[in-house]
C-alpha cells in the first residue's frame, strides 16, 4: 500500500529526513514514535505531499512517484495522491464556518462532486461511526476537543481513502478526552483500514500497531513489532526515549 525508498527531505540546507525506507501492507497499522523534532510530522506530510520530498521514491497503491530536486511534481499526481490519502491533524483544522455534518460533507461535495443530499446521508453515516450523529448540526466551537477530533476523523474517512494519516491526533486533548478518539481509531483499525499514526500513546500502539518505527534525527532508528521496539530494543536512543514516555505505556 505504502512504500518509501531512499526518501529524504530538506528544508533549505537542513536535512530533516534521511534515507527513509519503509513498507506498509494493506490493512496494517504503522505507528511512528520518536522525540520532538525527529521528523515524524514531516514524514507524514510527505506521504500526502503537503511537503515535497527532496529525493527518493514513493508509491501509494498503484501510484508511483519519483522525487529529485530539479523536477516539479505534476498537479494531477498530487491530486491523485491526495485522493488516496486522508489526514487527521493534531489541532483538527475543522472548518469553523461549517457545522459538523457540513465539515464531513465538504470533501464529498467539492472533490467527489457528490450530490448534496447524498453527501449529507454519507456524512451522517460517518458521524455515526465516530459516535457523533446527534451533534451533526453543531459548529466546531460548540464541540469539545475530543468531539472536534472525531469530526476530523469522520471528515477524513468520508472520502474513503486507501491510507489514513494521523499526526498526534490526541496530543492537543485533555487527558479525559483522549480515550474517545483512540476508540474511534481502534474501530477503524478493526475495519481493516491502512493507517499511519504518529502518537505517543504507547498503550494504543501496543494494542493496535502491526509495525512500529522509532525515529530520531530524521532517521528510522528501529523498526519492528510493538513488542520488538518497546520491550526488546537494545538501542540506547530508543530506550532513552521510551523511559521518557513510559507514563503512557
Amino acid at each position, binding site marked *: 500500500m505504502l512504500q518509501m525508498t531512499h526518501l529524504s527531505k530538506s528544508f533549505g540546507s537542513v536535512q530533516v529526513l534521511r534515507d527513509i525506507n519503509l513498507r506498509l501492507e494493506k490493512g496494517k497499522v504503522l505507528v511512528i514514535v520518536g522525540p520532538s523534532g525527529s521528523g515524524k510530522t514531516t514524514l507524514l506530510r510527505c506521504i*500526502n505531499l*503537503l511537503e515535497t520530498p527532496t529525493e527518493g521514491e514513493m508509491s501509494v497503491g498503484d501510484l508511483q512517484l519519483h522525487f529529485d530536486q530539479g523536477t516539479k511534481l505534476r*498537479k494531477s499526481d498530487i*491530486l491523485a495522491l*491526495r*485522493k488516496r*490519502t*486522508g*489526514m487527521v*491533524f493534531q*489541532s483538527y*483544522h*475543522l*472548518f*469553523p*464556518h461549517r457545522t459538523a455534518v457540513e465539515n464531513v460533507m*465538504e*470533501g464529498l461535495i*467539492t*472533490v467527489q462532486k457528490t450530490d448534496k443530499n447524498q453527501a449529507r446521508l454519507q456524512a451522517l453515516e460517518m458521524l455515526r461511526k465516530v459516535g457523533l450523529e446527534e451533534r451533526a448540526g453543531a*459548529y*466546531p*466551537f460548540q464541540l469539545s476537543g475530543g468531539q472536534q477530533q472525531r469530526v476530523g476523523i469522520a*471528515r*477524513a474517512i468520508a*472520502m474513503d481513502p486507501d491510507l489514513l494519516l494521523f499526526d498526534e491526533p490526541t496530543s492537543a486533548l485533555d487527558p479525559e478526552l483522549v480515550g474517545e478518539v483512540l476508540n474511534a481509531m481502534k474501530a477503524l483499525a478493526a475495519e481493516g483500514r491502512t493507517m499511519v499514526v504518529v502518537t505517543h500513546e504507547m498503550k494504543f500502539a501496543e494494542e493496535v500497531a502491526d509495525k512500529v518505527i522509532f525515529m530520531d534525527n530524521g532517521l528510522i532508528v528501529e523498526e519492528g513489532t510493538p513488542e520488538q521496539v518497546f520491550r526488546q530494543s537494545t538501542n540506547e536512543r530508543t530506550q532513552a526515549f521510551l523511559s521518557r514516555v513510559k507514563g503512557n505505556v
Partner: protein
Amino acid sequence: MSDRQIQIFMESLLPLFKAGVAFTIPLALISFVLGMILALFTALARISGWKPLALIARFYVWIIRGTPLIVQLFIIFFGLPKVGIVIDPFPAAVIGFTLSVGAYGSETIRAAILSIPKGQWEACFALGMTRWQALKRAVLPQAARVATPSLASSFISLVKDTSLAATIMVTEMFQTSQQITATYYEPLLLYVEVALIYLLFCSVLSYGQARLERRFDRYHAI
C-alpha cells in the same frame, strides 16, 4: 430661524433627497460593488504565485493610494479629454471611485485572506481540493467575516466621498446644495441641511453594518 429660513429649509429637502436617491446612493452603490470585484481580483493577484500579475496589482495600489482622490477625478474628467477620451460626469465619477475602492479594499481583503490559518488550506488540500477550491470553499468565506467591519466602514466613507463628484459636475447632493445656496444665499443653513442628510444616510448604514456583523457571529473563529 426666521420664517423665510424655515421655508427654504423645507423646500430644499425634496431636491436634496432627490439628488441623494438619484445620484449619491447609486454612485456609492455602483462604485462599491464594482470596486469590491476589482479589490478581490487585485488581492488574489497579489497573493498569486505569478510574479508579473502580482507586480501589476502592486503598481495599481501604489498609484491610487499615493495620490488624492480629487486629483484622480480631475484627471479622468478634465484631463482625459485632452487625449480624446471624453467621459460623462457620472461614469467618470464611477470610474474614479471604483479604482479607489478597489485599491484600498484589496489591502483589506488581502490581509483578511492572509489572516486565515495555514491549517485551513492544508485541511482542504488533504481532502484533495485545488488551491482555487480551497480559496472558494474555506478561505474566502472566513476572510469575508474578518474583512466585513473594515469594508463596511469604507462603504460609509465612500458615501461621504461621493460629495467630491460635485467638483466634476455630477449633480449629487452636495452639488445640489451648492446650487440652492447660490439662489438664496443661505450657506450655513443649506450646508448644515445637507450635512444632516449625509448623517442620516450614514447612520442607516452603520445600523446595517452592525446587523451584518451579528449575522456572522453565528460561528466563532477557532
